[in-house]
């Protein structure tokens, strides 16, 4: 099975914990006509990490880098969830049963239902298990 088509490139941006930083990032992406499909902010003591799925990750990466931001690519996967009670449980259980650890995750509820973005320790393993369990993984081409 070609698992690579399910690996999505997320951009992560190091950000100081002070007003205006998210605005600066969002403004830069808007200027480049880059669409943000999903994002989250993780907060630690004194700093944060902004994570986003965008339609043009390379362009976003280069733009932010040129502005002096610390930017990195990270591989994540996206799973379709039922937008109803128990939807998250189904996906989480598949991974839990398979012994795959979720490092972090965030979700969005789009036009075609809810999507869970996952950063896991074993990407290949996770993709295999989710596919065989019958759940739907979104392909990279959906995002970029």
């Amino acid at each position, binding site marked *: 099975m070609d698992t690579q088509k399910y690996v999505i490139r997320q951009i992560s941006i190091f950000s100081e914990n002070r007003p205006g930083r998210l605005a600066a990032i969002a403004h830069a992406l808007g200027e480049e006509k880059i669409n943000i499909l999903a994002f989250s902010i993780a907060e630690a003591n004194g700093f944060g990490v902004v994570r986003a799925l965008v339609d043009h990750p390379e362009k976003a990466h280069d733009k932010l880098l040129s502005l002096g*931001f610390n930017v990195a690519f990270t591989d994540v996967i996206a799973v379709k969830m039922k937008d109803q009670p128990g939807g998250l449980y189904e996906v989480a259980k598949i991974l839990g049963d398979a012994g795959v650890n979720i490092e972090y995750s965030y979700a969005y509820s789009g036009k075609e239902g809810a999507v869970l973005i996952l950063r896991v320790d074993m990407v290949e393993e996770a993709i295999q298990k989710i596919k065989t369990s019958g759940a739907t993984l979104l392909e990279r081409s959906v995002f970029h």
Partner: protein
Amino acid sequence: MRSWDPRIEEMPKEDLRKMQYKLLKSLVYRLYSFSPFYHERMKEQNVHPDDIRELSDVNKLPFMFKRDLRDNYPDKIFTSTQEELVRYHVSSGTTGKPTVVGYTQNDLDSWTTSLARALTSLGLGRGDVIQVSYGYGLFTGGLGLHYGAERIGATVLPTSVGNTERQIELMQDLGATAIACTPSYLLHIGEVAEKMGVDIRKDTKLRTGVLGAEPWTDRMRTRIEDWLGIKAYDIYGTSELSGPMFTECTEQKGFHIWSDLALVEIIDPGTGESLESGEKGELTITMLQKEALPMIRYRIGDITIMDDEVCACGRTHPRIQRIQGRVDDMLIIRGINVFPSQVEYALMGIPEVGQHFQIVVERKGALDDMLVRVELSKGSFSDKITDIMKVRQKVEHRLRNSLNVNVNVELVEPGSLPRFEGKAKRVIDKRSL
């Protein structure tokens, strides 16, 4: 020649101290009796010349600061009349009003003697051609070195600063064996020479650099020596003492401070208490023979360490190490002296962070709180929060080990800390004391 004046330079320490005591005693009597400024200062400190009964009693005398000269601009605390003066020098006044220094003929002679000993100690003498590329004029560097070099019988090439290509041509044509200038100007000369196709090593006779008037490091010394094939010596002084006065000898282990001219103390800049030799503190100098502008316990603001052992060269006078920082930059955090240069040094060894930093000091409750803000390097960011936390812990750990004080570290985005073209201002002290 080994020493310019072996009788003085190699005098047993005990005899040197006796000489210093006599000079100090007569200086204090003279100032107390004839100078309203010094008389007033000693009264305020509740000290009388009779209280000076041994050399260590110098620490009963009041301190002098740069501001004493500024406040008394231009010549209010001179102890000679204008008729007795033979020269003025004026400092550039980068940190405020300029300061004026006046010299009697004896003052110029002492200064020149000091440099004659110093230049001899680093191997220069008759037969040498010394190119003086310090500025001539109000600045003390050019004229000071000029007279010192003439006194030892060397031939002076008084090029002053500027017109670098011509300096290099003259260096070649007249066979300069030594150059006196700032280390940064010598680097510039080296670069211009390369562009002109002149190899300082092969195409000139240059073998000695007498470099000072700005701080420089041992790393820079190695670079200059390896690149230009010369021995590079540091020279120390400031216009308040007369000008550049003291150099390293060929051992390159600190400046010899001539005891008959200057009495050195190292003090704790916080408390003003005298420190032992070997301890780091603020350089404080009493000029024992100056006539026009005596300096008593003058706190120069430079941080160094005194070494009172007899030097391998045979000279008995105490030495001070190369200058390690400025008191103005020093912070006292929970009673511990902290220098921004220590922070800089610790950060240099951590590739995950950049070299720019900012120190923010606040008082939280009764305690000082020191925060170091430093930029997370590009390439050391990996999306993982735990990785970033580890970098921060590593920086905190290193700083704590080298400063002996607890430090909080904040990682900031690359390029977000202020950059400085001139003198960096890296400390924000929010404590209101």
